[in-house]
């Protein structure tokens, strides 16, 4: 009766230290929304290497940035880019074409099945899409197998367990009850497939606030919660911020140029910032809150 319920709120650096070189890491969000950038910047700062990154399934330039910073060995995404801002992530494209980063080729449905199998503790899930394509030749975790019930052959998609899932959401309480605004994309699935779930949030709120609308809780058991307001910048954070397009364009230019331009960008916005709040200072309140208007 006297024991206190454990609070799971930790600071950014402590959370990011749980991401170790060589791990398989899930990165939440989709497209140009809801990537856990504060955590990713800290992962870059601490020098983590050789990650297998499972993101998206339609990843944004969050994965491109991890590649640009040299953190990634292999990518499991159906897309890495920012649509018309960058149809293909520039650092991703360069690293893959040079053979520095491997791609385990998946489509969105296959990606979902890989995480589902991991979440369900079964060795594989079956799937139809991808039969008759080059994907099984370009992903060792895909095999064409017979249907034991006599139908046409189908794809076995091997379980892809995550060592850790990194997620951005709107709010959480101190006990790891997480609430998204909007869909939450594939964040629930990432969490279910992971041994450790770390969620950064715009706001840490009271347990009573969570209990006011428990049907909004998307992840009821985050292992660690980090307070990182504006932590998805330059990506959208539903209910809080829209994308920072000029900032994304600036990154795309630097990533395309590579070399000193990219190193300068990384110095300015990642290595040159002691922590997330230092990064926000660099952006400035005017810029950050300028993204908050509902357009």
């Amino acid at each position: 009766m006297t024991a206190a319920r454990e609070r799971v709120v930790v600071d950014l650096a402590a959370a990011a230290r749980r991401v170790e070189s060589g791990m398989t890491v899930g990165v939440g969000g989709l497209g140009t929304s809801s990537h856990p950038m504060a955590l990713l910047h800290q992962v870059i700062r601490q020098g983590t290497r050789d990650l297998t990154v499972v993101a998206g399934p339609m990843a944004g330039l969050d994965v491109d940035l991890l590649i640009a910073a040299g953190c990634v060995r292999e990518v499991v995404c159906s897309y890495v880019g920012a649509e018309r801002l960058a149809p293909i992530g520039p650092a991703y494209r360069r690293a893959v074409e040079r053979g520095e980063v491997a791609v385990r080729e998946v489509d969105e449905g296959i990606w979902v099945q890989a995480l589902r199998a991991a979440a369900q503790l079964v060795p594989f899930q079956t799937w139809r899409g991808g039969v008759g394509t080059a994907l099984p030749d370009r992903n060792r975790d895909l095999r064409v197998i017979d249907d034991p019930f006599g139908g046409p052959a189908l794809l076995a998609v091997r379980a892809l367990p995550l060592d850790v899932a990194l997620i951005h959401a709107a709010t959480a309480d101190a006990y790891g009850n997480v609430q998204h605004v909007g869909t939450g994309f594939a964040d629930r699935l990432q969490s279910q497939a992971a041994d450790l779930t770390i969620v950064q949030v715009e706001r840490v709120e009271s347990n009573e606030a969570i209990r006011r609308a428990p049907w909004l809780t998307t992840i009821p058991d985050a292992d660690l919660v980090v307070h990182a307001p504006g932590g998805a910048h330059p990506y959208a954070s539903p209910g809080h911020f829209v994308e920072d397009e000029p900032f994304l364009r600036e990154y795309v230019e630097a990533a395309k140029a590579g070399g000193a331009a990219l190193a300068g960008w990384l110095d300015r916005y990642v290595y040159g910032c002691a922590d997330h709040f230092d990064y926000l200072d660099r952006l400035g309140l005017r810029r950050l809150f300028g993204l908050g208007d509902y357009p």
Partner: protein
Amino acid sequence: MTAATGSYTYPEFLACLVSRQIEDGRPAFVGAALPAIRAGTLLGHLMRGPNMRMLISMTTTNVYHNPVIDRFSYVTDWRGGRWAEHYRVVEDIFGGMRRVARWRGFFVGALQVDPYGNTNLLGVRARDGRPAMRGPGCVGTPSVTAVAESFNILLNRHTPATFVARCDYVSCPGWVDGRPGAREALGLRGGPDLCLSPLGVFDFSPRTRRMRLRSVHPGVTTADIVAATGFELEIPDTVPETAPPTEEELELLRTRVDRHGELRKGERPWPTST
């Protein structure tokens, strides 16, 4: 081969072509990678789809009576969330393939297409066989087209390097090798219906499943298309011109879908084959 564009741009023309593939009563996926597909899908909804469910910005909704479908730029654009009747979760989309099986009018982009409508979004090989160009990736296209009632193909360029005898990699099977029952043998439903390029509209002969010229865009000749295609097309005796945008299409497009003129901007109003 630059055609006289008259009073509309190529992206507007393309949006109108896309809109004509949209049918009432079916779900339609509003992608965002290509503004013309997004705009065309919405235009089809406004033109003839009071009973459609639109899949916009990871939501499900119906915007038939919305006066203006205002600017939203990306697949996950939070600004598109304002119309939501339902939020879509990624794993639920792919947990609901029985619903996706009803889709028609879904557009697959491609770096390469072959005579049977097999397409490639993965990349292009160098002469020595190694991957030379990393493509964008296949997004959700293999899963959707495996089950959808039908789908369409869109290429941004029409050259012998994009209309090829054989794709370097196949990410989306079309009619496979053209043999009857080839898709069914792989457990695939549906199949490709149309292929759109900057030069013309193509379909697939029901007998051979090979690509067939259906119409040539304004200012383009059949000879232009033959010269720009890396395989032998089936060409009917008479080939009509692709119907240009109607006044109604352009007005709806410009006043309710593309109020900010995104489809009228840009340096390349009308692409050529080169």
